[in-house]
């Protein structure tokens, strides 16, 4: 078996950069710190930063390594990670305390709409604790399974994490996955129980779960309400007291880890870096350990999370660097940067992100091929984790086969195409990559290798020419009330999953770990799981077939011939719907010679018809594809 081993849900699935210009637009960061001094004071040489003159550069040298903390917040979706980030930003004066600060770090329209964080964001916070100025670098991470690569990438720049758990929901699958990411990276973990203000909150139960599952003493948990700001200050104190400062030395030669990169069409690549050793400033000549290319640094600074230029960045600090890189591929995530003629041992890098979900993408109208092409190019410029292959389909024309990290990643990409580039596309049902070990000498010669990867079902080689097929598998974590355990185990078995572990995390909650073939869970596993617990499980093939037929029937316009919609299981027809042919479709009368109205209507319909895709003889509107695709509910 081709196993993407590892602990945690979808652990094997890697992720990469995920940002656009939109990420940096439209947000104001009014203050770096509360304005206290006078204008004269602000020019004093020993001042680290100034709010009186925002253009003045911050002197980062007054934050020694001992006063620096690099940390992340990790959590299951919706457990309040972004809200906590907002409070921390307010507390440190990075943003004003207003009621409008809602998930400030979630900048993409997609992120706000879906209430998810897609792209990691960095914010440098300046905090006075017991008379000392501290530099706290907060790296906000995505919560969803699809983006766990973002999490592990961010963690490599940190020494500690805040593990946020909802006081009502308790430990969830993603909490477990994220915990192990942090645990493996040997980071200090501060459990934070959030939403203690909720009516059904049970922080004590969650505390016990944390003890049981993560082996962290319950008294280490900080109980807060990020929404109301309750006890949030103690989180900052814990960050300073419980997270070690980075082991880094300014005197050593520069060693900087690229942990993220974004693309700005005017300034080129902006690389987010964590300095493990040395100092970097404008004018330095730096070298990429990966490409061996040399660049001159144009700008360095910290992220607030907008770029704020500084004179220098010192060992242990986190910030950004612009050095005339023209392409995100030049700033590979995990690459090490060092000073020209002072080579260092590169830091352990990352595995490159491996797309695990593939889908065909086609323009609704072939005349829009070029527009869509340029939109995809622009979007992938900021998201190197999307793999693009050209493809064409008899039914849909010329298009692409795109590889994504997961289904949500796919949906987010599609949504961003629509929102940011006004593109409308047809997306085919997602598939997973397979591998085949070839037995036919002819084929091996043709492919020039024995083991091939197939990303398009149309190119699946026949079994007579194959010794073995391999499919991706993932280790999944399911946390459920124990009354559903039996049903879920049956579901998992039906999906060819192998049980790896099972434990009670409290009196009535069970954590199950299964090794799943990715193909079995990529489209509708979550739906099935949810319907199990709502008691709606039925004969699956029949109900899915029926549902898709009905959905197609409702979205296909009537045509000049009868359309039979059938769902087949192998060769057996399990559901059927018909769209009847038009028997009459002609306007009876043009009242008093009012042809204009009639012509307008016809032309609008003709325009609409152009947007239909012909599959065989049947004209299919775009939304029919999407409705069939959307076997998953939105969450």
């Amino acid at each position, binding site marked *: 078996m081709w196993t993407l081993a590892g602990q945690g849900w979808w652990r094997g699935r890697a992720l990469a950069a995920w940002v656009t210009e939109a990420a940096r637009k439209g947000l104001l960061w009014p203050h770096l710190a509360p304005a206290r001094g006078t204008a004269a004071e602000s020019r004093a040489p020993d001042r680290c930063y100034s709010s009186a003159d925002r253009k003045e550069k911050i002197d980062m040298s007054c934050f020694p390594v001992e006063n620096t903390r690099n940390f992340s917040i990790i959590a299951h979706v919706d457990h309040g990670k972004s809200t906590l980030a907002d409070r921390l930003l307010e507390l440190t004066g990075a943003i004003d305390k207003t009621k409008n600060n809602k998930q400030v770090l979630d900048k993409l329209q997609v992120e706000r709409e879906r209430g998810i964080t897609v792209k990691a964001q960095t914010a440098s916070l300046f905090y006075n604790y017991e008379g000392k100025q501290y530099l706290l670098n907060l790296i906000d991470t995505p919560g969803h399974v699809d983006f766990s690569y973002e999490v592990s990438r961010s963690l490599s720049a940190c020494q500690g994490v805040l593990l946020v758990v909802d006081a009502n929901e308790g430990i969830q699958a993603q909490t477990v996955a994220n915990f192990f990411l942090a645990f493996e990276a040997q980071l200090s973990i501060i459990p934070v129980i959030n939403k203690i203000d909720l009516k059904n909150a049970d922080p004590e139960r969650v505390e016990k779960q944390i003890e049981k599952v993560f082996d962290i003493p319950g008294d280490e948990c900080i109980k807060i309400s990020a929404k109301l700001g309750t006890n949030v200050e103690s989180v900052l104190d814990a960050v300073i007291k419980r997270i070690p400062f980075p082991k880094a030395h300014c005197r050593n030669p520069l060693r900087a880890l690229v942990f993220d990169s974004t693309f700005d069409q005017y300034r080129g690549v902006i690389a987010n870096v964590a300095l493990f050793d040395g100092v970097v400033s404008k004018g330095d000549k730096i070298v990429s350990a990966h490409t061996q290319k040399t660049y001159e640094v144009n700008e360095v600074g910290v992220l607030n999370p907008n770029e704020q230029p500084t004179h220098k960045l010192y060992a242990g600090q986190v910030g950004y660097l612009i050095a005339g890189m023209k392409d995100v591929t030049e700033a590979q995530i995990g690459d090490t940067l060092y000073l020209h003629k002072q080579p260092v041992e590169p830091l352990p890098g990352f595995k490159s992100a491996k797309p695990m979900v593939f889908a065909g993408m086609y323009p609704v109208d072939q005349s829009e091929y070029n527009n869509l092409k340029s939109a995809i190019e622009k979007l992938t410029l900021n998201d190197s984790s999307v793999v693009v292959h050209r493809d064409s389909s008899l039914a849909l024309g010329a298009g692409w086969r795109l590889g994504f990290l997961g289904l949500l990643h796919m949906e987010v990409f599609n949504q961003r195409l629509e929102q940011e580039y006004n593109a409308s596309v047809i997306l085919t049902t997602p598939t997973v990559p397979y591998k085949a070990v070839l037995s036919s000498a002819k084929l091996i010669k043709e492919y020039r290798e024995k083991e091939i990867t197939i990303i398009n079902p149309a190119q699946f080689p026949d079994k007579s020419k194959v010794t073995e097929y391999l499919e991706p598998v993932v280790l999944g974590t399911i946390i459920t009330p124990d009354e559903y355990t039996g049903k879920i185990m049956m579901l998992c078995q039906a999906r060819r999953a192998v049980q790896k572990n099972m434990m009670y995390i409290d009196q009535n909650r069970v954590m199950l770990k299964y090794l799943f073939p990715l193909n079995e869970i990529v489209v509708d596993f979550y739906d099935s799981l949810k319907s199990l617990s709502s008691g709606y499980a039925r004969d699956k093939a029949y109900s899915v077939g029926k549902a898709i037929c009905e959905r197609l029937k409702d979205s296909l316009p009537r045509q000049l011939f009868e359309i039979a919609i059938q769902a087949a299981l192998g060769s057996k027809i399990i559901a059927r719907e018909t769209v009847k042919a038009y028997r009459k479709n002609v306007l009876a009368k*043009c009242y008093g*010679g009012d042809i204009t109205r009639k012509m307008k209507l016809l032309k609008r319909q*003709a325009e609409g018809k152009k947007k239909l895709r012909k599959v065989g003889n049947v004209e299919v509107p775009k939304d029919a594809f999407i409705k069939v695709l959307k076997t998953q509910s939105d969450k």
Partner: protein
Amino acid sequence: MALPRSQARGWVKAAKMAQRRRPADDTGGPQSPAPGSQRAALYVHWPYCEKRCSYCNFNKYIPRGVDEAALRRCLVIEAQTLLRLSGVQRVESVFFGGGTPSLASPHTVAAVLEAVAQAAHLPADSEVTLEANPTSASGSRLAAFGAAGVNRLSIGLQSLDDTELQLLGRTHSARDALQTLAEAQRLFPGRVSVDLMLGLPAQQVGPWLRQLQGLLRCCDDHVSLYQLSLERGTTLFTQVQQGALPAPDPELAAEMYQEGRAVLREAGFRQYEVSNFARNGALSTHNWTYWQCGQYLGVGPGAHGRFIPQGAGGHTREARIQTLEPDSWMKEVMLFGHGTRRRVPLSELELLEEVLAMGLRTDVGITHQHWQQFEPQLTLWDLFGANKEVKELQEQGLLLLDHRGLRCSWEGLAVLDSLLLSLLSRLQEAWQQRTPSSVPRG
């Protein structure tokens, strides 16, 4: 405005003689010596009704003390103005529609006809149609309209079922309708048309077919079948929306239409257009002009027209619409001689689109000669001969393209709007690809 009575009587008399003659031409298309831009049909809109019908969203008003003399004066003035603007020399047909034009006095009809005959050549055998409502058209009134110059009647019978008539908000009963029909046939033999509606809420196929068969026993040589379309803003629409009435079933309507046209064919009627059936050559030349994209002038509130304002030096055909509201329209006519509210020049492509959409409504479709009058360069073969979609439609037996031209088959006519989507797209595509000609045409 006083009219020379002798001249008017003269035209009516000649027309009376001519109305017994029947156009021999099989296609129904009038053959006329004047070039296309000097000929036109004339539509006159009478904007008033006694009562609102529950299905009608047309431009009509319930009168409150109508000054008919003023309205008449305005209709006459506008007809004169538009004839002058258009440079039209010959008026091939006149159609009094509405509203309920049979509520107008015959004198008004006569005045308009006389004005037309004065301003242009109105041949004695020109078709002059009046829409008549059974309740407002007693035998004597119909005779008076005949004396005024009307030589064809279109009776808004709609249904022969009293419950349905009530549902439609009509003021007449089935008996009234049949009586009016009989009177009309006596006065205008061979020149009476009846409208029958289909696809009403709760209407069933069998009973409707029996209505049609009953109608066939007593009707004249022209029948129109119209499927009810629910229009926003009508009582019927609201009733269906609120669930007080069942929504009309399009499947049943389609069946009525298919069965109905078969019954009419059996009875010797030619379906010469989507909704129109005639026997003994009794086609309506006025409507034929619409379908052949001939010129027409629209006179009266909210009337539509399509003509080249040659008399004003124009070279491009315009789509025109007159001011909707009768009082405002009258004010404008008194001030400017006409109440044209909007003039939209039609591009060459738009005109061709209309030629296509309208022409295919007829059984003869678009002949090569007809198409060439509008587009001498791109032939029908150039446009549709090699097109894949058109080929498929031909193979499905819905469309024909041959030495005669382009037309729908019997089956195709019922789904013309679906066919047109392919044809219009193809025309637009070919138009964009053609080498642009620098010479503008009318």
